[in-house]
């Protein structure tokens, strides 16, 4: 651009040189563009969708009863026979293959496949296979074409003979120019031609001819460039397709999963059938202990914790009601201690006096001057004072005893021996593992249906029995309590659970197990449809919960479609 600007008021000769350089630049730019185009034109789209077919010759057929996939290795055809309904491998079936009019029984292999060998199978071209399957689900007859690739053709054949008919002259020129691959020589040639054109433009006589020559060159060279981009397209031979027996995601988003992989992943399907189900709402809940079975252990006065004879209770230890869990030594503050000492001193002083009085009274009784009554009065008084002294000094030494409030196990302990605890600190929680409840919050009307279930984070399902509904709102929510029927051993108090409470309304939809629904890359809910024996298509769906294990598909799946119910998450991971 700068050249043009300068030349606008420059001499004609300079302008001509500028034009020549522009032509040169164009010529250089054109091959560069061609190079860029080359890589693009290797479109994976058409190649990969047939990649499976090109690697190993294979047949893939399905009927209402069976899916049959065969892979050919040499002249040996390995057949995978699965039930169409649920993708379960069919073993123990009688399979026979007819090729070229020759019927051969397929021998069952150890791994549940069937194999048949025939030289007819390896013949290049398209061979019709008639496969007869007699299994536990019935008999079926299937037909498929096994396409065996021709032996590799010479490479030259693929490139040659490819000329667009529309523009014969230009195409020939392109071929002529384009055949030798561009390299350093190619760039040099362009430079030389550009230089010649530039020189010719400088000379007055040659200028018109040079213009024409330059124009022709530009057209021809840019044409070559485009021709180049196209060449790679029309190669029929597939570029390397490493191991067609590997699962892969196809460009249209579906996934190719060969039968061997499906068997390893145990992919199972089900046929979508609309059924009537009761709707459910999802509530957030947590596990709480049954208030009648178990409880908390707290100290009334606080103090220093002393371990009982059997040691501090450990987590999970089974305890009986009334069992001593810990003792708490009461603290006595300084002022109180002084009072106690003073009181003890006072009592001891009185005891001393009383003892002296008693001795005197006994002497008087012995001499006959006193009465026996006064002796016994003094004795009782003395005894009372001794007891008072013992009680007052015991205040310092008798600890508070903490016992288990109910039978159960220690669910939590927050105390060690010697720890000083405050009054009302929760020291232990005792829980009966066989009776746990779930508390859930509902921000709408409390669901009224029966058959409530809950789902734990790790996927376990709990059956719930309604226990109570709060009449007062707590944090603008109704509190619902349920008892867990037969709680599993690993259920913990405080564990969050998803409660699926039946709403009491029913609706028709396709019910699928929860495992069938997976998340797409955008977090959307999807299911995998078993479109062909070895192909799975993602389907975006809208689901609503039914209970902890099932969902109902409101949109996205049609009746009769086969949907993956096991292994969906594994298929989802195939890239």
């Amino acid at each position, binding site marked *: 651009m700068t050249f043009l600007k300068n030349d606008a008021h420059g001499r004609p000769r300079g302008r001509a040189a500028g034009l020549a350089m522009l032509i040169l630049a164009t010529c250089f730019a054109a091959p560069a563009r061609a190079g860029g185009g080359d890589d693009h034109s290797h479109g994976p789209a058409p190649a990969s969708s047939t990649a499976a077919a090109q690697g190993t010759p294979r047949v893939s057929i399905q009927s209402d009863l069976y899916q049959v996939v065969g892979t050919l290795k040499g002249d040996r055809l390995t057949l995978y026979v699965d039930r169409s309904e649920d993708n379960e491998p069919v073993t123990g079936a009688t399979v026979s293959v007819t090729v070229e009019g020759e019927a051969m029984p397929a021998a069952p292999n150890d791994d549940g496949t069937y194999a048949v060998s025939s030289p007819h199978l390896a013949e290049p071209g398209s061979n019709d296979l008639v496969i007869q399957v007699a299994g536990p689900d019935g008999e*079926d*007859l299937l037909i498929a074409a096994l396409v065996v690739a021709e032996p590799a053709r010479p490479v030259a054949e693929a490139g040659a003979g490819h000329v667009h008919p529309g523009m014969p002259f230009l195409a020939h020129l392109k071929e002529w120019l384009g055949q030798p691959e561009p390299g350093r020589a190619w760039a040099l040639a362009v430079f030389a031609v550009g230089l010649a054109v530039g020189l010719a433009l400088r000379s007055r006589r040659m200028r018109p001819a040079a213009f024409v020559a330059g124009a022709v060159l530009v057209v021809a060279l840019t044409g070559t460039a485009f021709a180049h981009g196209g060449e790679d397209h029309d190669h029929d031979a597939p570029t390397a397709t490493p191991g067609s027996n590997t699962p892969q995601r196809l460009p249209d988003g579906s996934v190719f999963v060969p039968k061997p992989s499906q068997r390893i992943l145990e992919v199972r399907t089900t046929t979508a059938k609309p059924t009537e189900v009761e709707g459910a709402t999802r509530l957030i809940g947590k596990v709480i202990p049954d208030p009648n079975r178990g409880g908390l252990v707290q100290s009334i006065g606080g103090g220093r914790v002393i371990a009982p004879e059997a040691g501090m209770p450990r987590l999970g230890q089974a305890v009986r009601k009334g069992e001593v869990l810990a003792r708490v030594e009461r603290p006595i503050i300084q002022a109180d201690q002084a009072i106690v000492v003073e009181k003890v001193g006072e009592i001891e002083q009185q005891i001393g006096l009383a003892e002296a009085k008693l001795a005197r009274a006994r002497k008087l009784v012995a001499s006959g001057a006193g009465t026996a009554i006064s002796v016994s009065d003094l004795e009782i008084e003395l005894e009372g004072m001794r007891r008072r002294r013992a009680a007052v000094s015991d205040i310092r030494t008798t600890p508070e005893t903490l016992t288990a409030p109910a039978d159960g196990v220690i669910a939590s302990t927050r105390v060690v021996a010697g720890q000083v605890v405050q009054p009302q600190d929760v020291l232990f929680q005792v829980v009966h593992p066989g009776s746990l409840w779930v508390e859930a919050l509902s921000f709408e009307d409390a669901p009224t249906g029966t058959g409530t279930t809950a789902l734990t984070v790790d996927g376990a399902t709990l059956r719930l029995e309604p226990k109570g509904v709060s009449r007062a709102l707590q944090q603008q929510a109704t509190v619902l309590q349920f008892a867990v029927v037969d709680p599993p051993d690993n259920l913990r108090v405080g564990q969050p659970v998803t409660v699926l409470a039946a709403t009491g309304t029913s609706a028709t939809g396709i019910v699928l197990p929860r495992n069938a629904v997976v998340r797409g890359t955008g977090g959307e809910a999807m299911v995998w449809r078993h479109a062909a024996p070895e192909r799975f298509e993602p389907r975006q769906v809208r689901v609503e919960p039914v209970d902890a294990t099932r969902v109902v598909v409101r949109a996205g799946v049609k009746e009769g479609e086969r949907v993956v119910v096991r292994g969906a998450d594994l298929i989802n991971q195939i890239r």
Partner: protein
Amino acid sequence: MKPSILALALVLALPVAANAQGHSHKGPNGGELVDVAGGHAEFVDTPTEIALHLSDEDGKPVPAKGATGKATILSGGKTETVDLAPAGGAKLAGALTKPLASGDKVVVSARTADGRKIQVRHVER
């Protein structure tokens, strides 16, 4: 850019082609019309014979002259093969020893005079 457009068209056509496969509906002779390479084939069975009527993409009958075919019939656990031969016009027919019963399965593998392969599967209702 032309090859790219071609490729694009090819890619776009692929799903259509996939859809077309296995798509069947009623044919003019009252049988099941199946899309096959280069046209359609209509499977018709009568109590005495089974026949394929060949037609091109537009539904026009294609002469069956020079075509050969073989039908395999699975009936009650036993298979039987019937050779099909041109029977005038677009018809490729073979004689049946007994009428097809409900649930019987028939597969036909045929080849036209110009080498096109035709595969038809039929389940008797």
